[in-house]
């Protein structure tokens, strides 16, 4: 797992993906930071955090798209799958590499917090909870993106597929708002990534949401392992 993790981190930075990902992430988060906080004179970073959710929908698939699809295309997966490592080790090595990139990106908010603290009081505890929520959502999204990448050998298909999947997850909320059947609506809201995330940006720390995101990540990583397992047995 360690070898794969290190190789992927190296590959992110030796290709342009890491730079494009970080640059776009910083541009958009910085844009909303300057509009919501600097221009509006507010120290409440919730607005920035809720836009992070949308940025992630588009950027995380860029991060995960080549992780497995490229291995398949270049036939390098044969090297990985015949090496003395477990499938779980391979998947997690790649997962944590992408997660590391995401952590580097999201950690920019500490700089925003620091800038704001010069001019006013920042609710640091809320910021910590928000940061945690962003990481959890990112962790779940990366697992989904990785799963999509394992299904195809085309990077572009993996990216588009990932964006579509994450977009649909976001649409759950909109669908839920139109559903009038009480139990179905509450069920959809339970499934909603955004509603749970929104709670965090309001400063509510809900343990069940934490578990929800973690189990999503675990589930999709498990699916990815199964994809390889299945291919081997078919």
């Amino acid at each position, binding site marked *: 797992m360690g070898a794969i993790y290190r190789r992927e981190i*190296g590959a992110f930075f030796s290709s342009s993906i890491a730079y494009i990902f970080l640059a776009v992430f910083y541009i958009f988060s910085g844009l909303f930071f300057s509009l919501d906080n600097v221009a509006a004179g507010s120290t409440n970073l919730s607005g920035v955090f809720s836009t992070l959710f949308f940025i992630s929908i588009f950027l995380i698939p860029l991060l995960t798209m080549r992780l497995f699809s490229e291995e398949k295309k270049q036939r390098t997966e044969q*090297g*990985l799958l*015949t090496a*003395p490592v477990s499938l779980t080790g391979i998947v997690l090595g790649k997962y944590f590499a992408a997660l590391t990139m995401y952590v580097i990106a999201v950690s920019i908010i500490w700089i925003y917090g620091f800038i704001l603290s010069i001019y006013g009081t920042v609710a640091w505890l809320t910021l910590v909870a928000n940061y945690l929520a962003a990481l959890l959502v990112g962790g779940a999204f990366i697992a989904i993106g990785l799963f999509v990448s394992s299904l195809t050998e085309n990077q572009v298909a993996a990216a588009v597929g990932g964006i579509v999947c994450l977009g649909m997850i976001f649409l759950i909320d909109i669908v839920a708002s139109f559903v009038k059947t009480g139990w179905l609506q509450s069920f959809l809201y339970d499934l909603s990534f955004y509603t749970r995330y929104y709670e965090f940006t309001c400063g509510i720390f809900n343990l069940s949401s934490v578990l929800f995101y973690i189990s999503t990540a675990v589930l999709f990583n498990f699916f990815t392992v199964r994809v390889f397992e299945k291919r*081997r047995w078919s």
Partner: protein
Amino acid sequence: MIEVRNLTKHYGDKKAVNDISFTVNDGEILGFLGPNGAGKSTTMNMLTGYISSTSGQALINGVDILEDPIRAKSYIGYLPEIPPLYVDMTVHSYLNFVFDLKKCKLPRRSHLKDVLTLCKIADVENRIIKNLSKGYKQRVGLAQALIGNPPVLILDEPTVGLDPKQMVEIRTLIKRLGKNHTVILSSHILSEIQAVCDRVIIINHGVVAADDTASNLSDKVTTDHRIMARIDGPRAEILQAIRGLDGIKYIRADMEREPGVYEYEIEAEPGIDIRRDINRVAREHEWDILTLRTMEMTLEDIFLKITMGENIQLNQENKKGDGK
């Protein structure tokens, strides 16, 4: 040591590999021969745990590849048909990655240096794999398989894309490795198999068509009682005289190769050497024998013979032989 028992792989209805069994002993180099699509790569992929078998077993040093894949894989160095190279990395960082991936315990620097020297890629160590020629890529692929010094090497067409000089070098290298490794080598190139391998398995349509040493294999198919003779003399008389010899099964006059000289295909009962008799007859009639040779077969002929439909018969003979 590699033991393969009744290994079978189905893709849907298609039987890619059907009930293959063989054993490769320590320090043996086994050549895998077969036309395209015969199941060579599929078998190798099953041995290395890349794909699973539909039924049957593959044991690497006594460890079942499906039951304890991680341990079994740690015994194997595998060079697939297309070397699994990360083309954006340098040779150095790629081999370092493989070293880590295989959780190799050997001293890193000296081991990598050994492998680089062995595969003759030390001069391209810091170049990006993408920019290397096919031959160099192939050798990086081989280096990758050698990292960790695994006791079993499985090489799928290792000399593809190399120039003749490099081919000879790689063959020499494989031969040297074969002294303390168990090697399975697949190839289309028969002379390569003949030069390198102790034993040959010919696979055709997913079944083992022949399994023997290269020389035994040629004995099996060669019939030293079959002779090609070019005799200067009247055709009808020659035919009659030779037919009159003991143990002649069949004689046929072939083409007129030289003016008035025909070539004769003579087959005696198996085990009878009739060359001397033919000579004696010729002397008695004062005919001149211009050529006399037994119809020996090269591995190439055997390969064609076996893969062109005679495989089943030979296979049965093998099985009979095993039964005895």
